[in-house]
């Protein structure tokens, strides 16, 4: 399959997918590549790395010993990089896109601010069962009339950090108490009536993006001017 084929993401873990070009013009290269893999499998031979055998990375980690320790390889790579020489990373980093900075708040005294957190603060008991890791959802909870994220009503569901301090005083992650003071003093007009929370522990980027888009759309509809997002 061509790497951008949706079938790749769906099936890459379960089967070997030979990388091809994006049209039938590439079939003369695709068929021999597939045949090579098939013959190796039929002969019961162990398949090597994706780069060597021509298949798309399956996301499966295989342990193996290197002839040199990681520190030595890392220093070598760094020296090459500093010298401007070519080097090959052992682990490709994901590329993150950029978003243009939003316009700043011109009139803070009349602004509505919303609180969002990835620190996993939830109503005690985690009523919506937000996962401690790889969260598949976010929660939306009313804080109308709530003056503080106290330890009686709130706790953290996050499994990626020591929860002791957040559970003793959830304001350390979801700073409702001080925001209410600032609201009363007129630093901004209003703290939005809901806060949004999820657990940012091993959260798939696609999920985080989806949560953010949905939250953003709702806040936009409700006339929120700015967001404070806290992370642990």
């Amino acid at each position, binding site marked *: 399959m061509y790497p951008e084929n949706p079938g790749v993401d769906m099936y890459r873990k379960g089967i070997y997918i030979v990388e091809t070009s994006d049209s039938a013009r590439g079939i003369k290269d695709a068929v021999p590549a597939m045949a090579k893999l098939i013959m190796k499998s039929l002969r019961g031979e162990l398949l090597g790395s994706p780069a060597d055998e021509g298949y798309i990375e399956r996301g499966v980690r295989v342990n193996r010993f290197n002839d040199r320790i990681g520190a030595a390889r890392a220093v070598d790579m760094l020296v090459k990089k500093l010298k401007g020489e070519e080097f090959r990373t052992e682990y490709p980093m994901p590329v993150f896109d950029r978003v243009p900075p939003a316009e700043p708040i*011109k009139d803070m005294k009349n602004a509505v601010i919303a609180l969002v957190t990835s620190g996993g603060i939830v109503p005690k008991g985690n009523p919506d069962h937000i996962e401690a890791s790889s969260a598949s959802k976010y929660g939306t909870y009313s804080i109308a009339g709530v003056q503080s994220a106290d330890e009686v009503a709130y706790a953290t569901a996050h499994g990626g950090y020591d929860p002791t301090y957040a559970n003793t005083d959830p304001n*350390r992650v979801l700073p409702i108490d001080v925001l209410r003071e600032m609201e009363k003093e007129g630093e901004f007009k209003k703290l939005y009536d809901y806060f949004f929370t999820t657990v940012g522990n091993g959260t798939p980027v696609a999920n985080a993006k989806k949560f953010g888009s949905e939250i953003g759309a709702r806040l936009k509809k409700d006339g929120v001017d700015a967001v404070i997002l806290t992370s642990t």
Partner: protein
Amino acid sequence: MVKAIESTGIAVVHICTIVPISQTVGANRIVPAVAIPYPLGDPSKSREEEKVIRRGILEKALEALKTPIREQTVFN
């Protein structure tokens, strides 16, 4: 999440502990937090002192939201 919310045009400030991660992923307005288990607190201090720390960080956050920026900016 920060970027996805900001894409709708709402200004977002990210209060986080590991600033380089936030920068790599691409948040535009960043305010450094105290520590991972207590970004806006400090258990070694009294509750009142913690609130002062919390206030300081939140004031910086509001400042960040009011500041026009062209590129990613960490508000120390």
